[in-house]
């Protein structure tokens, strides 16, 4: 990662992380489902890349 990318991510974090406390607390089930959905999205992108090559 270069400095610009890190700064972009940190800016995102600063803008959104404050809201985490204000949001309703999350359950482990929600974390698991969210992470599983993200994994499926990433796997689909990998498959797409492989098919495109």
């Amino acid at each position, binding site marked *: 990662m270069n400095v610009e990318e*890190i700064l972009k991510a940190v800016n995102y974090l600063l803008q959104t992380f404050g809201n985490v406390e204000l949001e309703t607390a999350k*359950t482990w089930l929600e974390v*698991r489902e969210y992470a599983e959905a993200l994994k499926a999205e*990433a796997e689909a992108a990998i498959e797409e890349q492989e098919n495109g090559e």
Partner: protein
Amino acid sequence: MKRFLICLTLIYAVLFNLACPFKKADLEKMKDYSRRVATGAHAGVELTRTLFREKVISAELTSDIADGFIYLAQGGQFVDAQLERAIKNYGKDAPPDIKKQIVDIFRSDILNRFLAVIEQLKLARVTPVYYAVLESIKTTVILTAGLLGIGQETKIQIEGAIKQ
């Protein structure tokens, strides 16, 4: 001699701690902390999704990081279920052997899995980006460990893992 006395005191403190019943109020506090750790982990997944969608991290790395959070969430679900069972089964304080069981599952299902997430982020060299998320989870995991009488060793383990 001084070192021997310190060791003896530490061993005594651990044994004394494990020999005491586990207060119901502490079990309930642990459940609350578990929820806070879950909220921090959720923010970690959200950050990963943004980094992936903004093409800051690759799909392969995203998948690996998601795996780490899935594994941690499964551990969190198991710990919550055990805490719920202990609260339900023991009207007042849980016996010392229950405390020992909870210490064991906290180590295997929360602490070690959180350390694995840190390791994963370190290998991908993206730990600085996750700094706030890791700090948030770290603080609550240490508070939980404090209730179990293993706060200091947990703090050393996590800080050592982040620094390495």
